[in-house]
C-alpha cells in the first residue's frame, strides 16, 4: 500500500461508522430522507466524473442511466421480488452495458458527438419507458416497500445506509482508478488523445472502460430509487435535474480528483435540500445553472483548484478567492431567502439582486474592483428593498464582507504587481 492510502481508507471507514451510528441516535426521518438525495448525487457525480473529469468526455444523459437503474429494479421487483443487492447489481450492469454500447457507437468520433448521443439516448429511453405498460407507462408505477428489514427501525434508514455504502464504494472505486495506470491513461486521453494514442495508450479500450464504469455507477444510484419514492413515473425518473446536477457538481468541486465531485455534491446537494424548503424547484435549477456557469468561466479548476491557489498564497489573490467564495455564498443564500420573499416584481428583484452578487463574486477573481463594487451594491440593494432582519442579514453581511475584501484585493494585486515589476527592474 502506498503512502497516502491509509488516511483515505480510515476516512471511508469513519464515514461509514458515523452513518451507521447516526441511525441509532437521530430520530428525525427527514434527515435520512434528505441525506439519501445528497448521497445519491455523490454516486452520480462520481460516476460522471470518471468519464467527464478523468477522460474529458461529457455525458449529458445521466438521467437516462439513472432511470435505467430505477426501471431495471421495477422490472425485477415485479417479476421476481428480487432483494436489494440483486437490484443494485442488475441496475448497474444494465446501465453499464448501455454505456458500453453508446461508447462503442460514438467514441470513435469527435468527443462532442458522444455528448449529443447521450442527450439523445436519454430521450429515446424516456419515450420507450413512457410507452411500456409493464413498468407503468406514462401513468407511473407504485412500488411497495418490504414491511420490515433486519437491524433497522424503518425502511428510510435502511435506504440511507444502502446509499451511504454505495457512495463510499463509488468514491473508493474512483480513488483506485485515479491512482492506477488506468487513471493515468485516462488523464493522457484528456490532455491529448492523439499523443496518448501515439505513445501506445489503448485509448478506445480505456474510453470504453470509463463509459462502462461510469454507466454502472449511475445505474446503481438509480437502483434503490423505486423504493425511495415508492411512486415512480418517467417524468421524475428521467428528470433533467439529474443531468444538470451531475454535470455541475464535479465541475464546481473540481474534476481532476475523486474529492471534487464529493465536495460539489455535498455542497450543491445540501444547498438544494435546504433551499427546496423555501423556494421552488425551478429556482433550485437556476441556482445550479448560475453556479455552474460562474465556476466554468472564472474558476475552471473548481473549488479544489481555488483551494490549491489559496494555499499557494499570493496575498491579493487570496483575498480575491475568498471574496469570490463569499460572493457565491451570499448570492446562493440570498436567492433562497429573498427569492421566496414575495411575488411578481418583488420576487424578480429578490432573484436578480442575489444573481448580481454571484456575478460580482465571479468578477472578483478577474476584476476585483468591479466585482467588489457589485457585491457591495447588491448588499445595499438587498437592505434597501427587503429591509434588514435576522434572515436578510445573512446574505447582506456575507456579501458586504466579500465586496470589501474584493475591493481591497484590487489594491493588493496592484501593489504586488508593482513590487514584482520593481524587482525585475
Amino acid at each position, binding site marked *: 500500500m502506498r503512502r497516502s492510502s491509509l488516511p483515505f481508507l480510515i476516512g471511508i471507514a469513519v464515514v461509514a461508522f458515523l452513518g451507521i451510528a447516526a441511525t441509532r441516535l437521530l430520530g428525525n426521518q427527514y434527515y435520512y430522507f434528505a441525506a439519501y438525495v445528497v448521497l445519491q448525487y455523490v454516486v452520480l457525480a462520481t460516476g460522471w466524473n470518471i468519464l467527464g473529469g478523468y477522460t474529458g468526455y461529457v455525458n449529458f444523459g445521466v438521467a437516462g442511466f439513472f432511470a435505467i437503474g430505477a426501471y431495471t429494479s421495477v422490472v425485477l421487483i415485479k417479476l421476481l421480488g428480487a432483494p436489494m443487492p440483486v437490484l443494485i447489481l442488475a441496475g448497474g450492469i444494465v446501465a453499464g452495458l448501455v454505456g458500453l454500447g453508446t461508447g462503442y457507437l460514438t467514441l470513435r468520433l469527435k468527443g462532442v458527438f458522444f455528448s449529443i448521443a447521450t442527450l439523445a439516448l436519454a430521450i429515446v429511453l424516456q419515450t420507450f419507458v413512457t410507452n411500456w405498460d409493464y413498468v407503468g407507462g406514462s401513468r407511473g408505477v407504485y412500488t411497495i416497500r418490504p414491511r420490515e428489514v433486519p437491524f433497522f427501525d424503518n425502511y428510510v434508514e435502511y435506504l440511507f445506509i444502502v446509499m451511504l455504502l454505495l457512495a463510499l464504494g463509488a468514491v473508493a472505486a474512483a480513488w483506485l482508478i485515479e491512482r492506477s495506470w488506468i487513471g493515468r491513461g485516462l488523464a493522457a486521453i484528456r490532455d491529448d488523445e492523439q499523443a496518448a494514442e501515439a505513445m501506445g495508450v489503448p485509448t478506445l479500450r480505456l474510453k470504453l472502460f470509463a463509459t462502462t464504469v461510469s454507466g454502472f455507477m449511475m445505474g446503481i444510484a438509480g437502483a434503490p430509487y423505486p423504493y425511495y419514492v415508492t411512486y415512480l413515473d418517467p417524468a421524475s425518473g428521467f428528470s433533467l435535474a439529474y443531468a444538470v446536477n451531475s454535470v455541475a457538481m464535479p465541475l464546481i468541486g473540481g474534476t481532476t480528483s475523486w474529492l471534487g465531485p464529493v465536495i460539489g455534491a455535498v455542497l450543491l446537494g445540501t444547498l438544494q435540500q435546504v433551499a427546496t424548503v423555501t423556494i421552488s424547484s425551478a429556482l433550485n*435549477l437556476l441556482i445550479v445553472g448560475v453556479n455552474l456557469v460562474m465556476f466554468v468561466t472564472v474558476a475552471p479548476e473548481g473549488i479544489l483548484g481555488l483551494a490549491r491557489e489559496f494555499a499557494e498564497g499570493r496575498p491579493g489573490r487570496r483575498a480575491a478567492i475568498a471574496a469570490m467564495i463569499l460572493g457565491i455564498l451570499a448570492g446562493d443564500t440570498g436567492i433562497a431567502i429573498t427569492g421566496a420573499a414575495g411575488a411578481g416584481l418583488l420576487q424578480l428583484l429578490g432573484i436578480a439582486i442575489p444573481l448580481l452578487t454571484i456575478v460580482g463574486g465571479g468578477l472578483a477573481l478577474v476584476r476585483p474592483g468591479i466585482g467588489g463594487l457589485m457585491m457591495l451594491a447588491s448588499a445595499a440593494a438587498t437592505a434597501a428593498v427587503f429591509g434588514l432582519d435576522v434572515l436578510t442579514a445573512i446574505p447582506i453581511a456575507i456579501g458586504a464582507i466579500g465586496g470589501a475584501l474584493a475591493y481591497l484585493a484590487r489594491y493588493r494585486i496592484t501593489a504586488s504587481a508593482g513590487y514584482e515589476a520593481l524587482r525585475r527592474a
Partner: protein
Amino acid sequence: MEFNQIIEALVACAGGDCGNLSSILDLLANAVVAGLLLGGFYAAVTIGVTISFGMLDIVNIAHPAFIMLGSFVAYFVNQTFGVDPVVIGVVFTPAFFLLGMAIYRIYYNSFEKRGQESIRGLAFFFGVLFIGEVALILTFGVDYRSVDAAYIGTSVNLGVVGLPMRLFVPFVVSMTMMVLLELFLGRTFFGRAIKAVSQDRLALQLMAANPARIKELAFGLSIATASVAGSLLIIIGPVEPSIGRDYIGRVFAICVLGGMSSVPGTVIAAIIIGIAESFTATFYGPSWSPAIAFGLLLLVLAVRPAGLLGR
C-alpha cells in the same frame, strides 16, 4: 391507425371495396404534407446550430433556449401591441444578433482562447440553457402561451389535403430565410469569410484575418435566426418554457444528418425528420414521435457520421 389496418384495407381493395384504402391514402397524403411543412419549420430552428456547431465548431446546445426567448418576445409584443409575430421575429433579429455577439465574446475569452472549449464550453452552454429556461419560467410562468394573428386557425383545402396556415406561414418564412442565408453565405464577402473559418482557420489567420472577429459576427447571426425561429414556433402552437428541451436532440439530429455545415443539407434533413415524425404520429401515435429524431441521430452517428451531404 396501425399497419395491419393498412394491410386489411389493401386486401379489401383487392376484393373490390376500396373505400378504406382511399381514406388511408388521404391520411397518408395529409401526413406527408404536414411533415413537409413541419420539416420546413425545423430547418429554421436548426439553421442557427448549423452555423454555430457546423461552421464555427461552437457546440451551442443552448440554442433552443434562445429560440424560446424568441417565442416569448413574440408573445409579449404580440399581446401588448398586436403586431404580427413574423414581423416581430424579423424586427428583433438585431437585438438577438447583439446578444449572440456578447455571448460569443464571453465564450471566446473564457474558453476558446484558453483551449478549454471541449468540456467547460459545453458545460457553459448547458448552464446557459437552464438559466434561460428558468428565467422564462420566472417571468412568464409555466402556462402555455400563444399569439394571435388572422391566419392562425384557418386552412386552405387543396383536394383531399388540408393546408393549415399555422404550418404553411412558418414554412414559407423559413424557406425564405434559408434562401437568403444560402445567398448570403455563398455570394457575399462576409458570408464567404464565415465559410473560410469553417474550412481552415489557420489559413485564414495567415491571410491576416481575425477568425475570432468573424466567428463573433457569425455567432451573432446564428442567434439572430433564433428570433425568427422562435416567432415561427409560437405560430405553430402554444409554447411553454421547457419545450425548448425537446428541440435539442432534434436540431442536432438534423444538423448532423444534413452534413453539419450545409444549408441545403439542413433543409433536406429537416424535411426528412419532419415527414418521419409526422408519419410516426399518424400511424403509431404521437407519444412515439420524440424518439424518431433521436433514434435517427443515433443511427446516423453509428452508420454515417458525415451526414447525407457530408464530404
